[in-house]
């Protein structure tokens, strides 16, 4: 066997090992995954909505918080209009006049600065953050607060699902978000969450102040704060029952911008917190999760490049062959016989199929975790597009972010998919 063959088999084994690991953890802890602790006291909550040009979505966002099944005297809503140039300000003023929200208008300074401003005026013990294009389900607060019985818990994240799946790009994200829900819950079992997403994460205010608030110099303030919290020895939990819906990019160009920000943010935060890597003090997060994540990205890019290389040369070779018979394609088409299929099966195909099968099991459990009915007939296109395109897209996003970080990155922190939208 050639060296390249051995390398590819080793990489496939690594991916298989990782898949097996998560599946075993999931199945072993199935009984406790949905158990949110009962709250021993009623915490007061300040819900913050940082907003920049969100006139279309923000009414629904505010209403989702007003509809929370939680004592009204125990929570407040603070909307920070971060210098919007649309009608966000006037839309929010209607709520403010009725005394339903506190509205802060400030000059544009980015999402982190908007949240830090709100934290300064927040009166309550817990800070709930909700992006202006996301919507909390009405029992969201109740599901989250029980975790704060443990004084070491600094933050709890919600399960984030997508609002719509109209385009192919959204269909892929629809499944990806379920996968993230699955992964975050399992990661929380080992206290290794390193992101507290903008939609629906709740923090202990005292800890946020202790760690210095949200960093205004990072592309991903929700990741930086999570690293910072972990760095201070606190715990981040996750609730499967607290659900938040969020709008996702509907076009590939918007998704590329969003992922460039996310993954470049990850690279930068990883550099800032490089002492986490292979550090026993950071437990499972430092010794296993972060290194394997980086390794998995490398493997993904390598395998996709290898596949694309084969595809490229295969296409050129096929074109050359077709050219040699003057493109009389129909004369050479044969129905594939059993013998041909049998003789085409090799070790790579077998190991690749086993790895793919286990990836499918993870997606199956991801959908089950979010109580989704597996309807292959109805969602066939969604599943196929996910499995056919996701690896390629992820490899592209990561490669794009690495190149962006090395050659193009300037210190611009702002808003929305290409900037500071979580």
């Amino acid at each position, binding site marked *: 066997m050639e060296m390249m063959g051995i390398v590819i088999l080793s990489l496939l084994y690594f991916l298989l090992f990782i898949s097996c690991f998560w599946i075993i953890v999931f199945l072993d802890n199935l009984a406790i995954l949905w158990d949110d602790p009962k709250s021993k006291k009623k915490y007061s909550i300040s819900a913050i909505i940082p907003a920049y040009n969100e006139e279309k979505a923000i009414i629904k966002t505010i209403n989702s918080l007003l509809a929370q099944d939680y004592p009204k005297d125990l929570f407040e809503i603070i909307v920070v209009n971060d210098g919007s140039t649309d009608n966000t300000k006037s839309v929010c003023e209607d709520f403010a006049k009725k005394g339903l929200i506190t509205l802060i208008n400030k000059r544009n300074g980015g999402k982190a600065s908007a949240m830090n401003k709100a934290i300064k005026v927040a009166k309550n013990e817990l800070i709930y953050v909700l992006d202006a294009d996301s919507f909390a389900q009405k029992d969201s607060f109740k599901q989250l607060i029980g975790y704060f019985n443990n004084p070491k818990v600094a933050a709890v994240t919600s399960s984030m699902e997508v609002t719509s799946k109209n385009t192919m790009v959204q269909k892929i994200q629809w499944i990806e978000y379920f996968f993230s829900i699955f992964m975050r819950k399992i990661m929380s079992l080992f206290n290794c969450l390193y992101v507290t997403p903008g939609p629906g994460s709740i923090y202990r205010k005292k800890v946020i102040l202790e760690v210095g608030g949200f960093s205004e110099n990072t592309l991903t303030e929700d990741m930086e704060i999570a690293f910072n919290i972990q760095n201070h020895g606190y715990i981040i939990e996750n609730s499967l029952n607290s659900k938040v819906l969020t709008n996702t990019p509907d076009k590939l160009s918007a998704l590329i911008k969003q992922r460039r920000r996310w993954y470049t943010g990850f690279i930068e935060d990883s550099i800032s917190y490089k002492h986490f890597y292979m550090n026993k003090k950071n437990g499972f997060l430092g010794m296993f999760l972060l290194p394997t994540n980086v390794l998995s990205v490398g493997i993904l890019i390598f395998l996709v490049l290898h596949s694309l290389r084969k595809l490229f040369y295969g296409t050129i070779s096929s074109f050359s062959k077709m050219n040699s018979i003057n493109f009389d394609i129909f004369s050479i088409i044969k129905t594939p016989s059993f013998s*041909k299929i*049998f003789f*085409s099966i*090799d070790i790579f195909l077998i190991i690749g199929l086993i790895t793919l099968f286990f990836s499918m099991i993870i997606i199956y459990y991801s959908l089950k975790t979010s109580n989704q009915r597996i309807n292959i007939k109805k969602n066939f296109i969604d599943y196929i597009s996910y499995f056919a395109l996701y690896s390629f897209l992820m490899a592209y996003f990561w490669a794009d972010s690495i190149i962006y970080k090395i050659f193009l990155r300037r210190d611009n922190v702002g808003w929305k998919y290409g900037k500071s939208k979580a």
Partner: protein
Amino acid sequence: MVKAKHNTNFYFIMAFFLSLILFVSGISIGFLLDNLKAQDINSNLQEIEESLKEAETELLLMDYFEGNFSCDYLMFKSADLGERAQTIGENVVLFEASNQVNLETYISLKKEYMRILLNNWLTLENIKESCNANYSTILYFYNNNECPDCENQGYVLSYYKNLMKENLMIFSLDAGLNMSSIDLLKYNYNITTYPALVVDGEVYEGFLDSTSLGQILFE
């Protein structure tokens, strides 16, 4: 904190063993399939070898009786042998691409296949002469190591085989196998570059596209 039931070491060990079992099973299935493929090619080669011997005997009998009473039968049989040899040849090529572990088995199978192919060619040439058959035969010399055009040449030949069916018999010979029988043919036809074709006894060196080969076959 909601903690996992077991510590991480437990999950690492479980995942390690599960993935190892799956991985080893996958590799073992791969080995098993390679063996099955080799067995399949071997048994087919043996069948063809027997049929060839039978055909040779029939040719001798025909000479003895100085007649062509069994020409139709022999021509039918020769076409069948040609088809079967071609299928085995395609399987040998696929086996080469998929076989990652057993190079020796592949080389010995391929050499055996080449020997039978040459016997097949000789038999078909004899039948052609004895029975005045009108099929064309092509000896195709290729070399996997020093022939960028060989893949395309093989494709053009498959194209004509598809078009002409039993009227064209192709014998693809791997010149890189260091077989004295193939070297003898190369010497006889004075072949120095690849791809090289011997179409009904005429030698053509270099790549022949479908138009050029068509002109030779249908002239």
